[in-house]
């Protein structure tokens, strides 16, 4: 990183933003959303090899000759797409809050 950039970035008082209640609240809610969803989708995903390796529940037929393992897999595909769009919806609202936080900082929410 060049000196030029370092000098410029000193101009932003990151501590001031980090200490704003609005910022703390955003990070708290954002992280709890991100990590709880991550735990959920990873659990749903890892359940597949666990079920197929140690049980036979997914080997049974669901519709015609189609076994439950395909249904479960289709579910994981649908889950992936749905969670993608859920993320975007959430992230757009987080964006608005982040903008408000920066505006609050610029209007003297921090040291100025």
């Amino acid at each position: 990183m060049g000196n030029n950039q370092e000098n410029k970035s000193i101009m932003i008082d990151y501590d001031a933003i980090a200490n704003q209640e609005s910022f703390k609240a955003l990070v708290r809610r954002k992280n709890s959303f991100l990590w709880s969803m991550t735990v959920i989708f990873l659990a749903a995903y890892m359940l597949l090899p666990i079920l197929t390796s140690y049980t036979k529940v997914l080997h049974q037929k669901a519709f015609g000759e189609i076994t439950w393992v395909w249904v479960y897999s289709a579910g994981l595909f649908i889950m992936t797409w749905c969670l993608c769009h859920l993320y975007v919806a959430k992230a757009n609202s987080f964006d608005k809050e982040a903008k408000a936080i920066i505006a609050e900082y610029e209007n003297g929410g921090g040291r100025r």
Partner: protein
Amino acid sequence: MSNGMSLTAIFFFVAIVGLTLVITWWASKRTSSASDFYTAGGGLTGWQNGLAIAGDYLSAASFLGIAGAVALFGFDGFFFSIGYLVAYLVVLYIVAEPLRNLGKFTLADMITARFDSAKVRGTAALSTITIVLFYMIAQLVGAGALIQLLLGIDYWVAVLIVGFMMTTYVLFGGMTATSWVQIIKACLLMLGTVIISFLVLKEFGFSIATMFKEMETATDSGAAYLNPGLKYQNGVDTISMLIALVLGTAGLPHILMRFFTVKDAKTARSSVIWATWIVGIFYILTIFLGFGAAKFVGKEAIISANAAGNMAAPLLAEALGGDILFSFVCAVAFATILAVVAGLVLSGASALSHDIYGQIIKKGKITEKEQVLAARIGSITIAVISILLALGAQTLNVAFLVSLAFCIAGSANLPVIIYTIYWKRFNTAGAITAMLTGLISALILVAVSPNLWNPVEGKAIFVGNPLISLTNPAIISVPLGFLGGFIGTLLSKETNDKKYREVDVKANTGISVQDVSH
């Protein structure tokens, strides 16, 4: 299958080579700064980068490998499709936006945004280069074998052709050319896959139920073909492999690098959405490719063309669409390989030229012109090394090399990325130990695994009993990467809360100089 090149095949190959060279020429006029070279100036839109991510990600291992695996092993082959797709949620939820907000050209840039240390940067560059080389050898070996098979030319000639093409794209057109080669490849690959899938469905009377019913008797495995267990019988090994697939993607340098080609986190986000839809539709279609190949080509014919099943998709195209579709699909496979290796060269070069030369050796005191020159020299270096390694690695199993690359990426890169963004206490020592523990443990565990050791002579490189039974060690090495970072952090007294607050603010708000008016 044809023994030499048919005229149609020559036409498609020449068309792809010509088109990509025109793009490279066009891109070369837009590549003057280091930022142009590494990130296309950060000017890609969401859909462009999304297609490019898909083009970067859907390697020959996906197109040829998964189609073959589903054809030969039924559901067990489909595990790959699921893992590779769900991996995008990890990328989107955990990595993409903070990475875009913190980094510049490389993974090391992002980690050193918090820990300004040459050692951290060097370790990150080392891990990047290691992953790139493994992945690249896999692609080049696969490409060589494929082109040898398709065109009837020698393996070494085939590797040199691919090597020459990828170097040309990157050298002259940098990230702009690479991205557009990837975008075009993604479109061609989707087109080819959709056409074949449509023809397969047509054969089954456009009924999924009929397809499954017929597949029950289409192979010698009977109904077992439609259930897991044909290939993967060891539960822990299966779970371990699926961990590598889902966590590895978020640590792959050439995928991470794609997030620096967009201007902000919002665009990074929309590119992941695009990529997830395209990649997801592709992976669904691998069912039709695999089932179709098993039914209309037959296991024996697939295995006799290539023991690993890599020829399943091209042979299926030939069976259903004749010489024209066969030639088209082969050309698509060629484009697929070119797009992936070009992305790999670029990410390897960024670690070598930007991280090691520019930031560590020259300490960042390097002019724009020198940076671009260094980037070009770095690209040639990475290309030459991987071509030489690939020429000597003809007999290595491609799928094994790819899964190893995913395993290292998940073990060495993902823990340090997560800690850097989300753990306040994390420090310089922890960053280094996280990467080294993940990298070294993955390498050692693979070195003592059944991939390299088999008591029966000729089955693996070394004769003897493997020390562990896991073919993919991710279930051990990923937790070791996290543990290494944790212990390394606690052993060092260093803390820097102020720096973490800065990183936290940047990652979560995307605030940068231009956002603040004063």
